[in-house]
């Protein structure tokens, strides 16, 4: 490959998520995000910078075994090749792998390795930049979602650690129930105190619309937009 003809220096790249809310913004690890901090009981946080990979492969088999979960459920990997990743069974033979921001290269390589080792026909696509991802946290989250999503969110239907894809405010969205453990406010002291929390993941260009629809629906519950209450 030859040298560029007449390279000019440009500003270092700044990444933007799908969401832009009014107010101050700041740059964290190359990502421009809202600078607001949410303190209320119901919070919508932009998790756009998280690494997002889709994996396709046989619904049952070695890929599934390595990813640790199947359709409709989630698995959090605390160790191993995918350590730090949350694997979501997004469809039959379809997974969404979520990893901390900035781990794109390693997680992609690790996931590709998992797929390659399986010997199955499987593929991995990095959709970090192609999707919007938000986290909605608070006891009122199910009531808010009941205004925009037709799926019954009762524990018996969508328990913690489960996931489904459906229409949310008329946008096809992956909804992941991923309650947050309250380490500071845990009356029983046994780690059972949890706050309802959902990840919502959709195609990027509809992200702002979806977030606006959630904020509108959450107004009566005092929703706030800002940095997540518990960094993940």
């Amino acid at each position, binding site marked *: 490959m030859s040298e560029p003809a007449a390279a000019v220096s440009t500003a270092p790249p700044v990444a933007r998520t799908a969401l832009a809310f009014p107010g101050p913004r700041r740059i964290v690890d190359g990502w421009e995000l809202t600078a607001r901090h949410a303190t209320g009981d119901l919070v919508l946080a932009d998790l756009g910078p998280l690494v997002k990979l889709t994996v396709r492969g046989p619904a049952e088999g070695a890929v599934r075994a390595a990813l640790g979960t199947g359709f409709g459920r989630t698995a959090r990997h605390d160790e191993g090749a995918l350590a730090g990743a949350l694997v979501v069974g997004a*469809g*039959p033979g379809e997974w969404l792998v979520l990893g901390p921001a900035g781990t794109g290269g390693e997680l992609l390589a690790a996931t590709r390795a998992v797929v390659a080792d399986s010997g199955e026909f499987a593929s991995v696509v990095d959709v970090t930049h192609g999707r919007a991802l938000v986290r909605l946290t608070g006891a009122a989250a199910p009531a808010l979602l009941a205004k925009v999503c*037709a799926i019954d969110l009762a524990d018996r239907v969508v328990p913690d650690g489960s996931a*489904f*894809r*459906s229409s949310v405010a008329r946008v*096809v969205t992956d909804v992941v129930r991923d309650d947050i453990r309250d380490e500071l406010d845990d009356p029983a002291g046994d780690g059972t105190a949890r706050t309802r929390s959902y990840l919502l993941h959709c195609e990027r260009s509809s992200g702002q619309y979806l977030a606006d629809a959630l904020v509108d629906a959450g107004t009566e519950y005092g929703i706030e937009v800002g940095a997540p209450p518990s960094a993940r």
Partner: protein
Amino acid sequence: MMLLPCPNCGARNVSEFRYVGEAKTRPDPTTATPQEWRRHLYLHRNPAGWTRETWYHGSGCRRYFAIERNTVDNAVRTAGATS
């Protein structure tokens, strides 16, 4: 709104799905006469009663699947995955 039993996701509102049409077998394009081909394209059984048809779960698993539906009262029964 009727529920449609997606073989992957379970019962969901029919608005999550796209109706594809009566399940049909595509004739062999190398041997079909023009008339046979056009009958495949244009003719429908269109029964008032049970029919086998294809749906697409666009807001869910994004899979095509077959069901049997009674077109008179929209009762639905599972017919397994299309193959």
